[in-house]
């Protein structure tokens, strides 16, 4: 399967400001996280892939075509912008139908697709209400729906959880994950939030100062450690029992951590849980987080 996006020595300069500096990377099927702080070049990369701007040098290919040469290549591309971009005086059904037609679908097909996608994002019941009356989370779902309504091969998401409260963020990330893994629609998720990437992405491209500083599968960045995570209902009791067996245990808010666990520690944990009569919910090797990776890079 050829890459969905290919960036070859891709550069974009705005006067003396270098937004992207000869970057090379590929985006394949699945969810790819484009991670980086503000000003790293993420938005510039997205604009280049959408064909809204031309590169200063190098080239970008999206779905096998140069997007800035022809607008037709956008027919199979979806885009969910960071800013609020929904009309306040239309209902969601009418809006999605219009967006589907703008992507080239005939009216009858556009109507069916609009209904299907609104059901998938959980707005089926609210489809005839004016979007101006929606909550922030519902508007965000309309934004995601318009990016999917024409059944794109690839969707570019720009800070999809911006402005959402914790509950809304969870729902949006779950929706993105489900869309990608159940619907088979590939996604490039641009964000500065590592948690969003960890929750959804298969691969990560780390942009810093217009350059790719790290790239690879998410699992490479979040490899298993020697530490063991233990989730039990009686955390204090199990911690005491483990200490009594000579196992050094760290109590964290939701879990216990045994650092550099050996085979003997596994036996001790089994026995401690049995002695206390606690319910063992989870016993798993701890993984590195992207946050730790960034912390290590800064050190």
């Amino acid at each position, binding site marked *: 399967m050829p890459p969905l996006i290919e960036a070859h020595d891709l550069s974009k300069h705005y006067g003396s400001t270098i937004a992207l500096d000869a970057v090379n990377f590929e985006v394949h099927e699945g969810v790819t996280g484009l991670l980086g702080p503000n000003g790293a070049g993420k938005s510039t990369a997205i604009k280049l892939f959408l064909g809204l701007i031309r590169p200063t040098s190098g080239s970008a290919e999206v779905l096998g075509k140069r997007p800035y040469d022809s*607008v037709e290549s*956008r027919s199979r591309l979806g885009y969910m*912008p960071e800013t609020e971009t929904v*009309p306040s005086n239309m209902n969601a059904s009418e809006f999605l139908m219009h967006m589907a*037609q703008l*992507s*080239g*679908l*005939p009216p009858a097909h556009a109507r069916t697709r609009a209904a299907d996608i609104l059901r998938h994002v959980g707005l089926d019941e609210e489809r005839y209400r004016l979007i101006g009356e929606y909550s922030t989370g519902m508007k965000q779902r309309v934004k995601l729906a318009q990016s999917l309504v024409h059944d794109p091969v690839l969707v570019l998401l720009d800070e999809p959880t911006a402005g959402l409260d914790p509950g809304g963020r969870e729902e949006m990330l779950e929706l993105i994950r489900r869309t990608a893994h159940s619907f*088979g629609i590939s996604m490039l998720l641009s964000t500065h939030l590592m948690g969003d990437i960890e929750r959804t992405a298969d691969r990560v491209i780390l942009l810093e100062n217009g350059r790719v500083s790290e790239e690879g599968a998410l699992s490479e960045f979040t490899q298993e450690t020697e530490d063991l995570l233990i989730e039990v209902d009686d955390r204090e009791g199990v911690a005491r029992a483990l200490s009594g067996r000579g196992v050094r245990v760290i109590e964290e808010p939701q879990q216990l951590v045994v650092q550099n666990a050996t085979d003997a520690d596994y036996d001790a944990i089994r026995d401690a849980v049995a002695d206390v009569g606690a319910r063992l919910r989870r016993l798993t090797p701890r993984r590195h987080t992207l946050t730790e990776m960034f912390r290590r890079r800064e050190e």
Partner: protein
Amino acid sequence: MTEAQGEVFDLGYQHYDGPREGRSRARRAIFENGVRTVLGLGRGPRAKILPTALFIAAMIPALVLVIIASLAEPLASFLPGPADYYQVVFMILLLFSAIMAPELLCADRRDNVIHLYLVRPLTPTDYVVGRYLAFFAIVLAIVYSGQLVLQVGLVLSADNPLTYLRDSWSTILRILAAGVVIAAFIAVIPLAVAAFTTRRAYAAAFVIGLFLTSTAAAAALTAPDFVCEEIEVDGRIVHTECRPSGEGALTGEAAKWFTLIALGEIPLRVNDLIFDRENDSEIARAAADLPDALLVGWYLLFTAGPGALLWWRYQRIRI
């Protein structure tokens, strides 16, 4: 006991394998959505009130003329006809355009929906042309509807409708041509103004103000002063006769050039040329010496100019 008659399956997500019509469908969607937006279709009842009221207002002059012509036939020759109709309804058309045209552009930029348009298989030029054509089509439908009502009324009230129709076929061609001239002009200026603001009210107020002040300024600058003389017979004043003094705010050659600044008069002068009509308004009389080609050129400049401004503005929209 009855057996289950059917089962419900969750088919999950279905990929789309129907037709994809690309950019041509996107262009049509912009046009159709533009028409629906102006007419308030697919929106709440409040969105339909203003276009309906303005449409009715544009029809009333034609209906009144037809009713008078049919009830008082001797008056028919004194009533405004097809050649005068666009001048009669021009102010209503201006109000309609000034108020409704900004809705086509302002809302898309105010709500940032333009960002979603321009990442689809559509160029800024496609967007602007689609929106302009949508509004042009609506204005054209309104001006033609009024003329249609007027023509139907005149045909039915004529002694011999068939003879009337046969004799007035050239008038019908002129009606069609003049309608395009009026609609093209009156659709483009409000859209060009709306391209520079996200507030519909600002755009509407600016357009109305622009037309009124330019016409008032032209009238003030070109209106002649009159000298009046009282005519006495047997020591009694029986008549007062007034005539232009040849002097005014501007006189002679200068006056006719200043008639060009009246924005609202620009398409009406071309309408007069199409119908070969003598206009007795003060501005029209002052402009009578201007060459026909200049009036047409001036019209084209003030139609293509705002159109180019509108196009230029949307080439510079950044996402």
